[in-house]
C-alpha cells in the first residue's frame, strides 16, 4: 500500500531560495507522492499451505462430490491443495506506529472466491466489493453485524469498512466456497500480493524499520522478517519468508 509523504518545506534566502520554495510548493500541491521505497522479497514454503475451504470440500462427509479421483499423470507432489498464492496470500510491512485509513480498496467477487482472499488493511480503510459474476452474491460477515447479508447483483458494488482492529471473516450465502478474511492492523505500512512464484514487492513511503509478515486465510503464517528501509530499495529475496517447512497432516488424506 502506498502512503503519501508529507514533507516539510524549508524556506531559503534570495531568488534562488524563492524559486526553490515555489518549486517545492508546486511539487507538494501537485499531489505527487513522495518517492516510495520498494521492498522486494520472496516467499517459500507456500506449497505446504493448504486452502482450508478446499480441504474441507474434499472431505467425503461434506458431500461435495459424488466422485473425486486423482489423475495419475499429475505428479503426486503436485496434487496438493496449496493456495493460489497471488490471490490468497497477503504480504504486509508492519511499521512501528499506527497509521490512518488508506485509500479505498477494491475486492473482486468472482469464481467462488474473492480476489484477494486475504487482505490486511489499516482500520477505517473502505473496501469496495464488486460482483464480477453474472449471478448474485450475498456477502455477510461472520460474527459481526456491520456487514449484514445483502444481495449483490451482477456488476453491483458494495462498500464496507473495518472500523476496528481485528480479524473479519466474510462469506457468501449463495456460494459456500467463498470465504474472505480481512485483517485490520493498525500498524500496517504497506501490503501486497506475491506472484505465482512467490516473489513480491512492497512500497513503503518512509524509511524505517519494518516487519514483513505473510497472512494466509486470515492468519499470519511463517516467521516475520525485519527489514530496515532507507532511501534505497531493499531486496530481501535472499532471506525469503518461510511460510511453512513441511506438509500439513491433511496430506495423509489426499
Amino acid at each position, binding site marked *: 500500500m502506498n502512503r503519501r509523504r508529507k514533507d516539510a518545506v524549508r524556506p531559503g534566502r534570495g531568488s534562488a531560495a524563492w524559486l526553490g520554495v515555489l518549486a517545492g510548493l508546486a511539487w507538494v500541491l501537485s499531489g505527487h507522492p513522495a518517492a516510495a521505497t520498494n521492498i522486494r522479497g520472496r516467499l517459500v514454503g507456500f506449497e505446504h499451505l493448504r486452502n482450508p475451504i478446499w480441504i474441507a470440500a474434499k472431505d467425503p462427509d461434506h458431500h461435495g462430490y*459424488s466422485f473425486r479421483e486423482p489423475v495419475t499423470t499429475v505428479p503426486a507432489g503436485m496434487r496438493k491443495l496449496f493456495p493460489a498464492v497471488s490471490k490468497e496470500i497477503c504480504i504486509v510491512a508492519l511499521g512501528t506506529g499506527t497509521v490512518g485509513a488508506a485509500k479505498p480498496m477494491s475486492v*473482486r467477487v468472482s469464481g467462488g472466491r474473492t480476489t484477494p482472499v486475504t487482505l490486511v488493511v489499516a482500520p477505517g480503510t473502505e473496501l469496495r466489493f464488486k460482483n464480477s459474476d453474472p449471478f448474485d452474491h450475498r456477502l455477510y460477515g461472520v460474527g459481526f453485524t456491520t456487514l449484514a447479508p445483502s444481495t449483490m447483483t451482477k456488476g453491483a458494488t458494495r462498500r464496507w469498512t473495518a472500523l476496528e482492529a481485528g480479524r473479519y471473516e466474510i462469506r457468501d450465502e449463495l456460494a459456500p466456497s467463498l470465504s474472505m478474511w480481512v485483517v485490520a492492523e493498525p500498524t500496517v505500512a504497506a501490503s501486497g500480493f506475491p506472484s505465482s512464484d512467490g516473489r513480491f514487492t512492497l512500497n513503503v513511503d518512509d524509511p524505517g524499520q519494518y516487519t514483513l509478515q505473510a497472512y494466509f486465510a486470515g492468519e499470519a503464517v511463517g516467521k516475520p522478517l525485519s527489514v530496515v528501509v532507507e532511501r534505497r530499495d531493499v531486496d530481501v529475496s535472499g532471506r525469503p519468508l518461510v511460510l511453512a517447512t513441511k506438509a500439513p497432516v491433511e496430506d495423509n488424506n489426499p
Partner: protein
Amino acid sequence: MIASRFWIGLLGLLLSAAAAVAYLAVSMHDRLGVRLAAEGLSADSRVVSWYLKNSAREAAAQLIRFAGNDNVARSLSNANRADHAAEIDAGTRRQLKATLSKIAQELPKDEAFDAVFAVSQSGEVVASIGFDQASDPEFELGGYPVVADALHGYVRDDTLVLDRVYRVVARPVEFELGQLPAGAIVGARAVDDRFASELSERTGAAVAFYAGGRRVALGAPSTFDRSGLDQIVTDLPSLEKDNDYRDKGRTDVHPFPDGLAVVYARLPGEAWRLGAGYAVARQAPRVLGIGGVLKQADAKDKEAVSRLLLLGVALCSIGIGMGLIFIEYTRPLSAFKRQVKALSSGSLSQLTVDRMRGPFRQLALDLNLALDRVPRSSAGEDGAVAVGFDQVFGDAAPVSSPPMAAFGVPGSLPPGSFAGVAPASMEVAASRYGQVAAAVGGGYDFASQAADRAGATAAARGAIPPRRTRSDQGEAFPMAAGSAAVAMPPALPDPELQPAAQSALSPALHAGAGEPAHAGANGNGDLEPEWMQVYHDFVRLKQDCGEAVEGFTFERFTQTLRKNRDTLMREHGVQRVHFSAYVKQGRAALKAKPVRD
C-alpha cells in the same frame, strides 16, 4: 314363507358382507399401493443418485477430448504467462474458444455439455463456450473446489448453483508431464427440464429438481401427472428440520393427500449446502373407493373376472329366490285362488284348509269362520236357503269393537245407533250381499255414512226425523215416537221385558195402534204377521242373553226385516222369507230362510 324371507335376509347379509369385503379390499389395495410406492421411491431415489454419479463420470470421460487436445493445453500454458487475466492475449482466447467449439461439436448429443470452460492455473476463465453471460474478462472459476481440485490434479464432479443449477465435472489439462497442470477444463450441464426429462427417460422415475425453495426442473414419464410435483414446494421449507435429510441427504417418504408420495434427496456438491436437491415422486395406485374399481379396471382386469361363475352365482341366487317364492307364495296363492273361485262358483261351500299353506291356511280358516258366521247360502235338506243376519244386525259385535258396533245389536249400542244405522246397514249389506267383506268388514265410518244416507232418506220421506248420532246415547230413540205411519201389531212385548225395554217399546207400539197393518213405513204395507212373534222372540232372547233392548223398536225391526226379505226374495227367487230368532255364541241373532213354495 320363512324360507324366502330367510333367503332375502341371507342375500342382504351376503350383499353387506360383499360390500365390506370390497371396502376392505380397496383399503388394503390403497395401503399396499402406498407401501409399494414407498419402496419404489426409495429405489428411484437411489437410481437417480447413481444416474447422476454415472453421468458425471461419463461426462468426465468426455472431458478427456478437451484436456487431451494440444491446442487447449498450449493455449492455457500461454495464458499462464500473463500476470493478470486482462493481460491474456486475445488471440489465445479466440483460438482456445474455437478449439473448444470444435471439440464440443464432435461430442454425442446426449453427452454434450451446455457450457465448457478452459481455466488457467490461477483460476481465470481463458475461454468458454455456452456461457455467454460471463462478459467480464476477469471472470474466473478458481475458487470453486471442483475447479481447484482439477487444477491440482483431480477429476471430480460438483453441483453448482450459479444463475442456474449446473452439474459440473472438471479435470486437469496437462501441458508438460511431471509439472503442475497448465489449467483445467470444466464441463457443465444445466439442470433444466431437458436434463430432468432425459434422466426420467433413462431411469423411469418422476423427478423434480429444486433450488432456492422453488422447483427448477421437472421430468416425468408421460403417464405421470406432472402437476403433482408442483406440490413439493410446500414441503421444501420443512426439509431442513428432517433429521434424515439433514444428516443423510435423503428423506423418508413424504405422502401427499392425493396419493402422491415423494422422497427428497440433496444434490452432491455445493448444492448440498445450498439446499438444492431433487424429489422423486410416485403416485400410489389408488382405486378411489368401490366405484373406482370399476372405473380403473382395464380390459385385462375384466378378463380375469370369471363371468361364468358370476352368471352361475346370479342365476343360482335368482333361482333359489324364485323357487322359494313359487313354493311359498305363488303355489299357495294359486291354490287359494282356485278355491276362492270354486267358492264363488258354488262348487265349494267352504275353503279346504288342508290344501292351504302358509298365511293362506290362516286366511282360509278365517274365511271359513266368516262364512260360518255369515251363512250366506247353506242349502238344507228341503232345499230351503238359510241366511244369517246376525252380522247385518250386528248382534255379535262387542261394544268395544267399532266395526261390529256399527252393525251392533240394539242392546250393545245406543238406541239411536241401531235405529239410525240399521236401515243403511241393511242397504249396504244388501248391496254387498254375496261378498265376504260385507259380512265381516265395514267400519264405523262406513256405518256413519250409511246412517247419514239413511237419515237423509228418512228425512226426505218426512216420516223419519233426522238421525241421531252417537251423542244421543242414553236417550230414547225419537223415531219410535215419530213413526206414526208404521203399523204395529197390537200385541205387547213379552212381559219379561225389563221396564226400560217396556218403556222403549211402548211408544212405538202405542203409536202404531189402530193403523192399518200394511201401511208400513216404506209404504209397501207388507208386514208379515209372523214378524211380531219374531220380534218378541228376538227381544226375549236378547234379554235372556243379558243384552240391552232400550230403543229396540218394532218399527226399526220390521224395516230391517223388510229390506232383507226383499233382497233375499230377489236373489233367491222366492216368494217368502222366514225369519227366526236364535242364540248364537251367547247372543241373540236372527236367521232368515228363503222359503221355496
